[in-house]
């Protein structure tokens, strides 16, 4: 449905997207994952014919974005990062306007407006001015305008950004329910979002493709590694960081210990287990046995950065991890030089 080949987009000084290739099958939901500034929005803008590519090709439903933009636009529904709403228009008026732009008319237009209002739960704000809507409603109206002409491809740029947790869940359910009829690409920097909604993941960083894989495989690759945040305090004041760190590292099954923070004799560590090892119990026992206080012990989720590290190879990841201990900004050390493409 979507085929991107060697796509490159250069701005005046920077290369936002660097030779990215991927393809998306019909009916799939694909998550476009990457930290801020990775080139997600740029790639989506190329796919929607908003920006022309500097090099390479992109086709949607067999139509090239440069040669037949009108055919591509007809088949695409697009929700930009900020929903493109006119504050002075009422919701239904706005949806009718967008519907007409996309080529709908007459009874069909009325039907589609009713349909998307129901589908996106905005029926109760149909007569309200868009400028007066809350962020959650604005986002949903944005989604409604994207699906108004029943497009084959939906491109959603951070559809859940700025929503509250309840709205995020509703929006994810909504997106999931749209799959099948539509091929969906959604961008995000939140990992659980991809796990919950997508079947396929495309990970990019600094304009380069890091990995494309199914969510299932990605989880399998990273599963079995436990990441634990641990806060230790000394009984009576002083507590030596290195001592504690050594102690923790000696526990069997522990792969890395990161000293994260220390305040008022409280030390915070992030501990990562080796693959397939559960270390939480041992950690707790070791701390208590040494006569220290265990203030906190919780499982930390896999951050996107760690996924990157995982994906870019074991030993290199370890090196990068060690480097990250010294560096103040761990993001700098993400090894983007080694691309793995699955």
């Amino acid at each position, binding site marked *: 449905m979507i085929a991107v080949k060697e796509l490159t987009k250069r701005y005046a000084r920077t290369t936002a997207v660097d030779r990215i290739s991927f393809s998306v099958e019909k009916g799939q939901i694909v998550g476009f994952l990457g930290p801020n500034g990775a080139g997600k929005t740029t790639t989506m*803008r190329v796919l*929607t*014919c*908003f*920006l*022309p590519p500097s090099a390479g090709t992109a086709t949607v439903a067999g139509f090239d974005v440069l040669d037949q933009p*009108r055919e591509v*636009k*007809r088949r*695409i529904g*697009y929700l*930009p*990062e*900020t929903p*493109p*709403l*006119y*504050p*002075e*228009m009422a919701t239904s*008026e706005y949806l009718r*306007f*967008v519907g*007409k*732009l*996309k*080529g709908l*008319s007459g009874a069909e237009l009325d039907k589609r407006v009713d349909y998307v209002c129901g589908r996106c739960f905005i029926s109760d704000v149909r007569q309200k001015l868009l400028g007066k809507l809350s962020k959650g409603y604005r986002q949903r109206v944005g989604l409604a*305008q994207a699906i108004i002409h029943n497009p084959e491809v939906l491109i959603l740029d951070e559809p859940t950004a700025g929503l509250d947790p309840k709205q995020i869940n509703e929006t994810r359910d909504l997106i999931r329910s749209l799959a099948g009829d539509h091929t969906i690409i959604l961008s995000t920097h939140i990992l659980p979002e991809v796990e919950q909604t997508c079947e396929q993941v495309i990970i990019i960083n600094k304009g380069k493709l890091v990995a494309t894989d199914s969510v299932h495989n990605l989880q399998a690759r990273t599963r079995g590694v436990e990441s634990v945040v641990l806060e230790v305090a000394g009984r009576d004041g002083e507590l030596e960081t290195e001592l504690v760190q050594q102690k923790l590292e000696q526990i069997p099954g522990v792969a890395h210990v990161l000293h994260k923070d220390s305040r008022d004799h409280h030390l915070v560590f992030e501990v990562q287990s080796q693959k397939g090892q559960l270390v939480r119990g041992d950690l707790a026992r070791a701390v208590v046995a040494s006569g220290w206080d265990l203030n906190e012990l919780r499982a930390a989720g896999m951050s996107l950065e760690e996924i990157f590290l995982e994906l870019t190879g074991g030993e290199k990841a370890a090196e990068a991890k060690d480097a990250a201990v010294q560096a103040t900004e761990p993001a700098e050390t993400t090894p983007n030089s080694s691309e793995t493409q699955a």
Partner: protein
Amino acid sequence: MRNIWTICRKELGSYFVSPIAYLLLTVSGVVSGFFFWVLLSGFVIEGMEMQMRGESFPMNINEQIIRPLLMNIGVIFLFFLPLITMRLFAEEKRSGTIELLATSPVRDLEIILGKWFAALTLYACMLLMPALDFIFLFVYGKPDWKPVAVGYLGLLLLGGLFLAIGTFISTLTKNQIIAAAVTFAVCLLLWVMEWTTNFESGNWADVLGYISVITHFDSFAKGVIESKDVVFYLTGIFVGLFATARSLESLRWRS
């Protein structure tokens, strides 16, 4: 064609739900009403003086009221038109709604024409305000209606040209104030260009004099349709809208 109409109606809606349309209509009504009152008073007093002196010069409403009034309206509207066009593209660029238009299956030209027609329609509504003054002339006097119609045609063409320039300048910036200020400056320069003919002569002055939008309006105010003036305005409108199209296209390559 349908898309032009869709966009035009949306833009008109935006004008008329915001205070800007009503503000412009009110201000143009008040200002043209004032000019009308001044001109009419002068006309009446002159008529009375002539009667007292027993002279009977031919007095002409068309020559002495309508023609100067149309010229004045042309000048006043020069100040107001940037307020109409400033938001056309600058606002879309600032709020990001340009992404919606640019990713919809409509041509750039349709977007531009839709917006320009909407601006022209609002401008035409502004022109109706001085028409209220003319009604009194027709009720109490017997002016010739044809010069009035021709004058209106001229104002429409003149305004269309300014609106095309303003639409173009609106695509260049995200800031409405800048769009309005630059549009005003450009229109004003085009207006006063012919002053150079006062002290300059030769080819250079001829060209500047020709570019000046006001020289071409004279004939319309007199009630004469000169094809060369019509061609001048239509060419200007075309150039302005063409530049808008190029600018809109380049937005995608530059951004």
